[in-house]
């Protein structure tokens, strides 16, 4: 792994990264599977430490995660060359389904909390219902960039079993996990701008504001 990538990861871990750092890391996740693994390990380690300090009853759970990590395939075997191109990974689904709204087969959820995948499936719009297959994606709060304790919570949550996507095992799943992280981060950038815009009108200023990541908050003078 390149030294500057390692430094970027460290900076983001310390919540001191800016958008340049973030972009650098996003790029490196695509090009360097090893960097993605390092990133995840950093966060898992931090998660474990935080969790132990805050909730002692979860110590066993943390240990379980670490044990899983030890049994994980070596990073070198996880390499799956990401396809590049205009309609690369993002567009494959669209091409397969005819590039229209017919591709909508459910909701890709980046939040767990109280609203589990089952609920998301039931919330799929009626026109999409026949093929509804809501995928249990990791929550944004489960993504390392946003909080440290996500991995543990995901592993301990019964909700993850529904999606059958244990993120720590197969190389394909890890690739998918990276895609999900990237998708959630991109989505957050749109949500941040939407939050800026929604807070413009009178009333209800706090609620939109707090939906933003806080990375790019600013008013309109």
């Amino acid at each position: 792994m390149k030294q500057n990538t390692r430094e970027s990861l460290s900076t983001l871990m310390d919540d001191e990264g800016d958008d340049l750092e973030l972009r650098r890391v996003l790029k490196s996740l695509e090009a360097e599977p090893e960097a993605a693994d390092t990133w995840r390990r950093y966060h898992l380690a931090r998660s474990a430490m935080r969790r132990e300090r805050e909730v002692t009853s979860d110590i066993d759970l943390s240990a379980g995660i670490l044990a899983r990590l030890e049994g994980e395939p070596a990073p070198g075997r996880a390499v799956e060359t990401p396809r590049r191109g205009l309609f690369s990974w993002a567009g494959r689904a669209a091409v397969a389904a005819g590039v229209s709204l017919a591709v909508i087969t459910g909701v890709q959820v980046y939040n767990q909390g109280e609203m589990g995948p089952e609920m998301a499936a039931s919330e799929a719009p009626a026109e999409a219902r026949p093929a509804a297959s809501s995928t249990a994606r990791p929550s944004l709060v489960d993504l390392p960039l946003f909080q440290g304790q996500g991995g543990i919570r995901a592993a301990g949550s019964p909700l993850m079993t529904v999606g059958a996507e244990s993120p720590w095992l197969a190389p394909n799943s890890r690739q998918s996990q990276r895609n999900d992280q990237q998708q959630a981060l991109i989505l957050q950038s749109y949500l941040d701008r939407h939050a800026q815009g929604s807070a413009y009108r009178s009333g209800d200023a706090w609620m939109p504001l707090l939906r933003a990541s806080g990375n790019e908050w600013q008013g309109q003078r």
Partner: protein
Amino acid sequence: MRAWPRKRHWLGSLLGLSLGWGGLAQAESSGFDCRALGDPPPPETPAAWFERSLWANHCYLFEARAVRISGEGVRALTLIHQVEDGLQREVAHYLDGPPQTYERLGRVGRGGWAEAGSEVPASPDAIMAHLDDYYRLRLAGDERVAGREAQRLDVEPLDAMRYGQRLWLDRDTGLPLKQELLDVEGRVLETFQLTELERPRLYEGRVRLDTLREPPPETWRPGWLPPGYVAQPVVTTSSLHGERVGHRVYSDGLSSLSLFVEPLTEEHPSLAPGLHRLGISYAAVHHRELGGRPMQVVALGEVPPRVLLQVVERLQWQSEEP
């Protein structure tokens, strides 16, 4: 598409809505005089309560503690609202979890983009002008929130294209003490509640209105929006998006949705087509050719997802006929 109905129209509706409360001075070009809230007769109608709360948000200086309850759990916050020289500053700081701070500086918004021959009303006036076309407001008794007496106000949508709200408004100041966002089935999606409101003081002066803004030129426009949604005159920025991603916000006064349009390129990662959910916000993503280029269209907001799907599907390029 016209940004907002002519002044005569909204003023007429506004007077109708405000009758029960008895003459709140309206915003003028020099701003809104907060002293109008100083010694008012208590609001009697649900609309008058709501209108007062909109202005109270701008006019009261306060520090508060609050909790936000969402799918991600419960998080505690401190809030500050200040006004200096007519300009507002809002700061929210999370007390638990990652130490995030949000700061917003600004003025009272406008109801729409600048329009020749029309005075664009202040955002609260614009909201009140059409609120009862799309929502039913109902007073629902007194309750106690954050150690203060509160008037509960239920805001129920008249169709399935927007979410409803429950508000608990401070009897003294009109400030919202608690707020719940409800989906079309009436389930609570998100709760925001003050736990302590410290020394709310009325700003003894005028809060400034936003300047009139010309809409930036755009090569696309929504071919369909839910009834009552109008373009908001706000320009947002993102260092990740740069100039590449066009953004417009539309609101009916309570609910908002955003449209983002951008060319699909190799350098920038795109979202997978389909429907996404992040927190309580949904995003409908569509990839299609517009103006001879592959483009990504994203509609995002706290509205029922089928509304967003229809918005992205009906987006129009400038050369297309309506």
